[in-house]
Structures are given as C-alpha cells and as structure tokens.
C-alpha cells in the first residue's frame, strides 16, 4: 500500500478520458430507443395500418 502522497496508484484514467465519448453515445442510444418505444405505444393505441416491425422477426 502506498503511504507517500506523491506516489499513488495511477489508474488508466480511462473514465475521465472517455466521458466525452461514451456519455453522448449512451444518451443518443437512449433517446432513439425512447422515440421508438413511444411511437410503438402510440401506434398500439391508434391502430396504424403500418406493418409491425419490432426487433424480433417472425
């Protein structure tokens, strides 16, 4: 274990470094998923003539 304040475990710092990349990515993925879900829910209510095309094929 380190006691010296100047000498410490240096992790990758990848979280710090990667925040600009992965946080927007997750937000975008979340927003697209949200839009798609909302659309599907609305459609179930209003019976659109569009064919069903959820993730699963049939």
């Amino acid at each position, binding site marked *: 274990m380190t006691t010296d304040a100047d000498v410490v475990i240096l992790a990758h710092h990848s979280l710090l470094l*990667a925040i600009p990349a992965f946080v927007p990515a997750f937000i975008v993925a979340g927003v697209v998923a949200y839009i798609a879900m909302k659309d599907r829910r609305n459609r179930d209510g209003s019976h659109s003539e569009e064919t069903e095309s959820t993730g699963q094929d049939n």
Partner: protein
Amino acid sequence: MTGSTGISILAAAGSEGGGAAIGQVIGMTVVAVIIGAALCWLGYLHRARKITWVNSVAEYAGRKFKRPPWVAVPMALFIATLICALFGFIWDVSLHIGKGRDPGPLANPAHYFILVGLFLLFVAGCAAIILPYEKPGPFAVRITKDWYAPVGGFLMAGCGLYALTGFPLDDVWHRIFGQDVTLWGPTHLMMIGGAGFSTISALLLEYEGDRAMGADKPKDGVFLKSIRYLGFGGVIIGLSVFQIEFDFGVPQFRQVFEPMLIAAAGAFGLVAARMMLGRFAAILAALFAIALRGLVALVVGPILGSPINWFALYLGGALVVELVALTPLFKRPLVFGAVSGLLVSTVGLWLESFWVDAVYHYPWPSSLWPEALMMAVPVAVLTGVCGAMFGMVLTDQRLPRRAIGIGLVALTVLVIGGATANGLRYEVPQNATATMTLTEAPGSAPDKRMVTADVRINPPGLISEDANWVSVLGWQGGLANERGIFVDRLERLGPGHYRSTQPMPVYGKWKTLLRVHDGRIFTAVPIFLAGDPGIGAPEIPAQATMTRPFVPEITILQRERNPDTPMVLWTVGGLVVLVCTLIMIGGLTWGAGRINRREPTDSKTELQPSAQA
C-alpha cells in the same frame, strides 16, 4: 479503497504537475461536448427536414460510391475510423509493452486514436440510422411512422456502443483489481471486440444497400470492388485482434490459444469472403489483411520506434478454402463451411506454422499440436459454419431453419468457451527452482548492465526437451532501450540446463524474467524487476548467482494487479462483461437473420430466392 483511489488520482494529477493535464481533459471534454452536441443538432435538423444540405452531401457521396446515401456516408466514415482505431490499438499495445503502464491520463497518445476511432464507429452507425428519409431497403427497422433505419446501422452503432461501454467498465475494473497489463482483461476485450465485430455489421449494411438499389445498381469500378475485398480483410483483422500479444512476442497465456485463434478467425472470414465475392476472394481478402496489418506494423515499429509486431498471414487457410470451393461441396454452404473450417484448422495451420516459425519469437513446437488441434478443430469447424451462414445472408441464400441457425451460433459460442476454459488452465510446479549464474556481458556501459545467464532448473526433469518455450523476456525497458522489449529463447545444453544466446538487460526500468512453458506448465522466475514505488513494489535485483522459486507468471508480469480482491468480485465483473458480449453476438445474429428472412415489403425488391432447407 475505491474512495481513496479516487482522491489519490486527483492528488496524482496535482503532484505530477498534472494541473495542465486536468486542463487538457477539461478542454477535450468541452471540445467533445461541442462536437457531440453539434452532431445531435445536425441530426435533429436533418430529421425535422429543417436543413437540406446534409441530405445533398449524403446523396453526392451516394452517387460517388454507387451506394444509397445511408450506406455511402457511414461506410466511408467506418473505414476511416476503423483504420484509425486499429492503428491506435496496435500502437497502444506496443507502447505498453515497451514502457509499461501509463504514467498519466494523457501521456499515451495512442489512446486518442482508440477513443476517437470507437466514438466515430458509433457515429457511423448513427449516420446510417439518421440519414434515410425513405424506408432504407426491405429489412429496415421502424423507429417511427416515417423513420426507418437499416439493420446494419443499428448493429454498427451497437458494436460501437459495446466498445465504448468498455471504457467506463475498464475504469471500474482497474479501480477494483488494480491495473492488469494484459490485452486479455475482460474490459479490454470489449473495446477491441466491439471494433472487431463491427466489420460484420458493415458488411451487412453494405448488403442492405445492395438490396435497396436492386437492379438499378451501377457496376462497381476497381476501387469499389477492392473496398469489398478490404471489407473481408477487415473481418479477418477484426477477429484477429485477440492474438495481438502473440504477435508482439509477449503472450501471457498458453501457446495453444494462438493456433486456435488463427483458425477461428480464418475459417469465418475466409469462408464468407469466398462465398460472397467468388473465386480468389479468400486469397485476396488475406492479402488485403496482410497489407493493412503490414502498414500499421511498419508505422508502429520501424517508424515510431515502438516494439515490432508480426501477424498471421492466413494464406494457407485461404488456399484450402479456395480449393474446397472448387468441389461440389460449395453448393451446400453449411457443409462447405464445416469442411473448410476443418481444413483451415489442420492444413491451413500447418502452412501458417512455417510463417510463425520463421518470424515469431516463439515457433510452434511439435508438442503443441495435439492439444492445439483438439482446441482449434472444433472451434474452426463451427466458426466456418457461422462464416458460411454469414455468406448465405450476403448472397441471398435462405438460411436453415431459425432454431438450427441460432443453435449453431450458440453451439459455436459454447465450444469457444469450452476451448478457452481449457486454454486458461495452467500449472505452476511446486517446489521447483531455477539457479541462475549471471556473467557480465563484455562492453556493457556501467549504467546499462547487460548479462548472460546459465540456468539450471531443479528438478532437472521438470521440463521436457520439446517445451513451448524456455526464454528470457525483458519488457517495459523504455523505447530508447531496444524499443523496451527483449526476448531470448535459451539454448538447451542438457536436461534442465539452459544458456543465454544474447545478453539481457538488467538495469533501469526493465522487468526481466525467465519464462517456462511446457504443455500445461506455465511459470516464471524473476531475474531483475525494477523497483516500482507507484505500486509499492521493491526492486528485485539481479545477483551474480541466485536460486529463486518458480511462481505464477501473472505475479511478475502483472504486478499492478491488486491481489487482495475477493474472487467473487472477479466473477461478477467477468459476468457483466460476458452478458454485454452475448448481447452483442445475439444482436449480430438477430440482424443477420432479419436481413435473411424478412419478406420484402416494398415493390423495389424482387427475386427472393426460393426457400430451401
């Protein structure tokens, strides 16, 4: 512990004059947020049809590349970004081998290439999702009533997301377990695996573009044709990323993995290439892979002065796939894939072994083959079958029934898992020691001590004559000192008696050790380990005569690991990564299946091949 590490990181940044570094991180975050927000805003304006120029640019690219706009733009971005990520990845590995772990967040320039590469991979996938105004081809996934996105776009973005997920998990991982300086940390595998598997999504997107254009599609010129071969070369490279430690001559796992990984990647990529692009496609794909890996290796090694890496050629495998394709088996894709896999993992590996023996630090001894074949053959047969199914999707052939197709993918995953579990088993001999007598090498500078060693392993009968390796590895010595890597396979003088063939470095920051690998035995003895105050590890000096016990190699090569972490955490961490990985493979399987099965819903597409089992 976690909390204190968090604090100490800030302290570290402060204590090493890292104020500027923190400033850089903040600067980079600001830049990235601006770019990200701008992209999102552009996407919104484009979807809301408030601007037209994005569409005009995309259509121009589409005309230029003879693809729909939603294929042309993402593919151009994808190819550029993946080459960027590949370069960053190889360079990063080489820097870690030559210099050890990173001294700070921004000290390693290669990280930028990886980060930007993986981020743009995600952006490329998003571009395919956001661009199309009209339904992009018959297989498109509905997002809203007037917004459909190609399956390949979703898969590409998903692979990017999977790779990016590796970053935060990696950080958590390192805080819990300490740094593991190996490529095969689970979170590292996510980052490289996401990029590697994204090549499959790119080919699916390309196929969707083809189908969407139907008969109107103009013929590809030489450039666009070669891009397709490059695509399959990309699949081979993408699936070869797991071998990189072998390519650098610092494998931290048993040697049987190497042939298995080569056979697995080769069988999948080469079979699919041959099926989609016809005669000589397997060989051309291998040649493109060689050219790209060769270029990157040239830049990283000779030009940037980092450790040298080699790469498997896959030419032997390509040759046998081409030959099998000349037989009537080619008409039965699954059989073709299985037989090709069988031959790639036997004849192909045998041909590959000449190359490995010629250039790699560790040639394949004859004792390797029985276990290597037991692992490689089942794995390659099944990846060959998966490659054939991928090829069927790309050539409009009907896949076998859904249960069979999914079952084959699941079986492949299980068999790879089983073979990997076997490969990870190793033994450290109890009560064995190595007695080493060091001789100062003539002419070595006083501050750069070089020695040769005479090594006696006790008991003498411990290691067979045909061991995988008895060698001295020195690494992390700094790029200025012989690129920071030293590998010397010792000359065998008699049972348990070995001798250096060249002087090894035992000074400065080097970590020099005797490595022994014979079948299941996988162990090492430290010769000289530089003191590492950062992790509280004292120097282990190289004495003129010393007798030291054999220990698990991981305790020497990965001194950064925190040994006190409970096993449960490791299992939980591994399971999280495993679940993410299975989701990604499941997603690719679903996408390929959807593209193959979905009945066309728009009139543009015709010519659905008749169903066959």
